[in-house]
């Protein structure tokens, strides 16, 4: 196989890698959204801004404290999760029991606030962040940069770990039970409000982690979140709202579809995710892995 449909294999592998990279971020972000939606019934519009925040904290740690990528990978998710829990405690908590649309509007406002504040400080241009891994693997027909391989492997690992955590551990069972019947879970002596706070923190922490991993690939820019979030919303709708498996599969799958579309019909690459979303809605309105009741 030297040419497939008249396209050199190097280009195919290249776009496949780009697709998997983008898909890694789609999956990480839609995973966090799915977890938050599954328990809190909130669409976290600030997810993109929190991802951007993660990238900026990583950048600031390197710039001002001299702490490099691997430290950021450890600390940033914790910091963003803490910020998320603070937001949940001070603001989202007060909207509990109201129409979920108010939480959507609140988080939308937070997203504007964060993006506005960072644009005021840093402008719309990006800050560079050096890649922590140099070198890569040279295949017969393509070169795979080491950092990109790391991102794909790491995000697959995080996705699987999160899935295992929610679906297979005792804490995860509490989460799912609190989603089904919060009143009953409370009578068992489980502190559901605390569970909500921790869940929101977990989702935001995943967004922060995504931000750190994105920093060396894309530039650290105030606009990076809002550019991504709408695509991620479409991914969530395709995967099925609140479905963890759906978020992961749809995230990676759409990244690859987008990459291959760029190869075949370059102009359509920007819209292919939305077209897939419309097709999904027409054929299977609840999403690929969604349940009818959500």
């Amino acid at each position, binding site marked *: 196989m030297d040419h497939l449909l008249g396209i050199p294999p190097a280009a195919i592998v290249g776009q496949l890698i780009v697709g998997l990279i983008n898909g890694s971020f789609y999956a990480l972000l839609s995973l966090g959204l799915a977890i938050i939606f599954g328990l809190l019934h909130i669409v976290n519009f600030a997810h993109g801004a929190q991802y951007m925040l993660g990238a900026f904290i990583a950048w600031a740690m390197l710039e001002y404290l001299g702490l490099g990528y691997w430290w950021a990978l450890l600390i940033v998710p914790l910091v963003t999760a803490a910020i998320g829990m603070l937001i949940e405690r001070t603001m989202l908590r007060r909207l509990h029991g109201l129409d*979920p649309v108010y939480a*959507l509007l609140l988080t939308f406002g937070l997203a504007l*606030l964060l993006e506005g504040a960072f644009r*005021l400080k840093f402008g719309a241009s990006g800050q560079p962040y050096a890649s922590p891994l140099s070198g890569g693997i040279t295949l017969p027909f393509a070169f795979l940069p080491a950092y990109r391989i790391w991102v794909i492997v790491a995000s697959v690992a995080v996705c699987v770990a999160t899935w295992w955590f929610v679906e297979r551990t005792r804490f995860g069972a509490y989460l799912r039970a609190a989603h089904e019947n919060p009143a009953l879970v409370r009578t068992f002596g489980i502190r559901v409000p605390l569970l909500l706070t921790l869940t929101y923190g977990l989702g935001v922490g995943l967004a922060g982690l995504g931000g750190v991993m994105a920093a060396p690939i894309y530039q650290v820019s105030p606009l990076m979140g809002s550019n991504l979030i*709408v695509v991620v919303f*479409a991914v969530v709708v395709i995967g099925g709202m609140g479905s963890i498996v759906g978020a992961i599969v749809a995230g990676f799958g759409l990244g690859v579809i987008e990459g291959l579309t760029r190869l075949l019909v370059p*102009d359509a690459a920007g819209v292919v995710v*939305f077209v897939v979303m*419309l097709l999904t809605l027409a054929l299977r*309105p609840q999403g690929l892995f969604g349940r009818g009741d959500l």
Partner: protein
Amino acid sequence: MHTPSHTPRRLPAWAIALGVAAALAAPFVAYPVFLMKFLCWALLAASLNLLVGYVGLLSFGHAMFFGSAAYVAAHSLQVWGWDPALALLAGAGAAALIGLVGGALAIRRQGIAFSMITLAIAQLVSFVALRAPFTGGEDGIQNVPRGRFAGLLPLGDDLVLYYLVLAIVGAGFWIVYRTVQSPFGHVLTAIRDNEPRAISLGYRVNRYKLAAYVLSSALAGLAGSLKALVFQIATLTDVSWTTSGEALLMVIVGGLQTLAGPLVGALVVVTMQNQFASFAEVVLLLQGLVFVVVVLVFRRGVVGEWEAWRARRAAGAAATKINPPEGQA
């Protein structure tokens, strides 16, 4: 949004007369273009309020109607040399068509999923606007001629254009008011408050929702076409999600389910835009702040809180008097 329904009270005649007089005198006091901008945005907000407030459908993509209509109107004015009256109709019609197709898909899901889907469809539309041959890409369509409305009114004169915009926006508000008051509007409110019950009563809920969605998109399109006529430009900003967000902000600031809310909301947001015209990031920051404060502190919006305050005061007065005064139902 699932508050018990309340039909808007009839405004007293003196208030309507005062409002009309103020609207007629306004261009002699304030800059006409600013007023026209305010009116266009108010119509956009009113169209969204019809959907969010009275049907309970939170559309996050109203910019697609506003922006596409602006492009269609601008193109038909500039390239085809159409009469402005036809261009306005073409813009609103195009928006209604997009609303029909997009709405048919979006209303398959309810609640938050509906919002996310409308946002994604709007994003699709804005990608098309970026790439389509007739939209001028990043530049947009510029220097759109205003022409003569119905071959008679010279719209190059800001004052003439102002009164035209006022009449059309006024008609738009009247349509919203009539819709909300009509039997059709009552069915919409019933669907918002309890959809399963509306279904069990035999209403084809999705047809009602789609009809409201198309009406709302046509009105948003009318607002967008007017905007293209006033500013003589149609750009990517008009179809971007920030415009959808601003429309939503106006609705929330003014107050859901209030007819005057969109006016107040549009005045606040447009004033904010003008004050900080050269600092986009400050506008973003302030809008975010206003969103957060309104949602946390006064969810009923300016007009909604004012009405609630009046209702409380009336209830207090009724409790102290033996015979409550008339008209305080």
